[in-house]
């Protein structure tokens, strides 16, 4: 067992873990933070994307011991006092999901994009989400949601929401 100290969504946890424990399993099984789903075993799908010290990672491809001393933000750490962020609202308003399984990862990846590039083009949104698979939507409404959250219209002139810092 290895001792770790990790701050997750604002709360610091101290735990003894097996070195082989994946961060995704630590979040879900030890901390009960099941908002982060696991979709694949091949680092492809991006459903388990979380923020680790300010950058997105696929939490199925990080060991919990590698997060020792770090700060993790999951989808469950975004809302403040029960209020969704504008990015979360945009996914809701633009119907950027159907089954919702990919949504936590999509939102974490889109949040990472908007931090680096607050006004991305539709193409830049698609590039930024290339590591996140959605099998329902065909991605159109996901791209619309991210553009809306950035305060921009998409090419088809769909109505947009307020600008945002995600």
């Amino acid at each position, binding site marked *: 067992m290895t001792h770790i100290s990790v701050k997750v969504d604002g709360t610091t946890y101290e735990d003894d873990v097996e*070195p*082989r424990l994946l961060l995704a399993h630590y979040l879900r099984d030890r901390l009960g933070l099941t908002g982060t789903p696991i979709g694949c075993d091949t*680092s492809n799908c991006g459903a388990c994307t979380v923020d680790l010290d300010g*950058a*997105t990672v696929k939490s199925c491809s990080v060991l919990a011991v590698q997060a020792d001393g770090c700060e993790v933000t999951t989808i469950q750490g975004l809302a403040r006092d029960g209020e969704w962020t504008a990015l979360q609202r945009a996914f809701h308003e633009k119907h950027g999901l159907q089954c919702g399984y990919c949504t936590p990862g999509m939102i974490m990846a889109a949040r990472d994009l908007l931090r680096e590039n607050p006004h991305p083009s539709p193409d830049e949104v698609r590039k930024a989400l*290339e590591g996140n698979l959605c099998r329902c939507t065909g991605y159109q409404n996901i791209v619309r949601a991210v553009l809306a959250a950035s305060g921009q219209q998409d090419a088809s002139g769909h109505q947009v929401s307020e600008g945002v810092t995600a």
Partner: protein
Amino acid sequence: MIPPAFEYTRPTSVDEAVRALAGAGEEAKVLAGGQSLLPLLRLRLAFPELVVDVGRIPELRGVREDGDALVIGALTTHHEVVHDPLVRAHAGLLAQATATVADPAVRHRGTLGGSLAHADPAGDLPAVALALDAELVVAGPGGRRTIPAREFFVDYLQSALAPDELLTEVRIPKRDGWGFHYEKFHPVAQSWAIVGVAALVRRADGGVAEARVGLTNMGATPLRATTAERELAGADDSAAVARAAEAAAEGTRPSQDLSASPEYRQHLARVLTRRAVLTAAGMG
């Protein structure tokens, strides 16, 4: 899936890491960003007794200049490589190719050294390192040694690293003024290249004076298209480049898999070499 059990150590210096590796014989694996190793562990394709996590060794990180060379710490992430001003200025081919590796989340974790040490011929960066004539500096119990990229990739997933050696930095000769292009053919975003071609071109009189061509996924190791390189020297128009590119697959023995037959890969190598060289030469 759950990785097999292993012992874990997190050294804070290169010397400490080398001692840990030396103590474990052949049973240790180095963990840097983990973007190649963790999938192998999850799929139970690797069973190390000891994982040596070098991810917190500061001396392995960062980019600096050393005369005519650029020196990139092995632990420098793909994301850092893509955005580094020195890399962009002196090794643009590496920055461009690295931006095509996997996806943003993987690039946040994955490292240049890890990608090279993994020695996957389908990875983008081994062929780029070959084209750039990079040198790999490794630390072992007896000190440091430098291995040219052309001697580093030994076989499929096998490098010239001894079990008790750690890749510490990658030295790349500056190629200021050379044109470059990485042409990657892949079925969907973020997937591995079916074939990739890394081209470096020194231009003169509107044509190609000298060319370096690295091939991704055209055999058990990354390769240089040496015959095509010879024939590209002096190519003064696009037709001459196209003729020279016909030799790009010469001597290759690419694999067969679900994506492509060996013949199709050889076809791709010729077409992609033509495209990559023309773009690198500003003739595309």
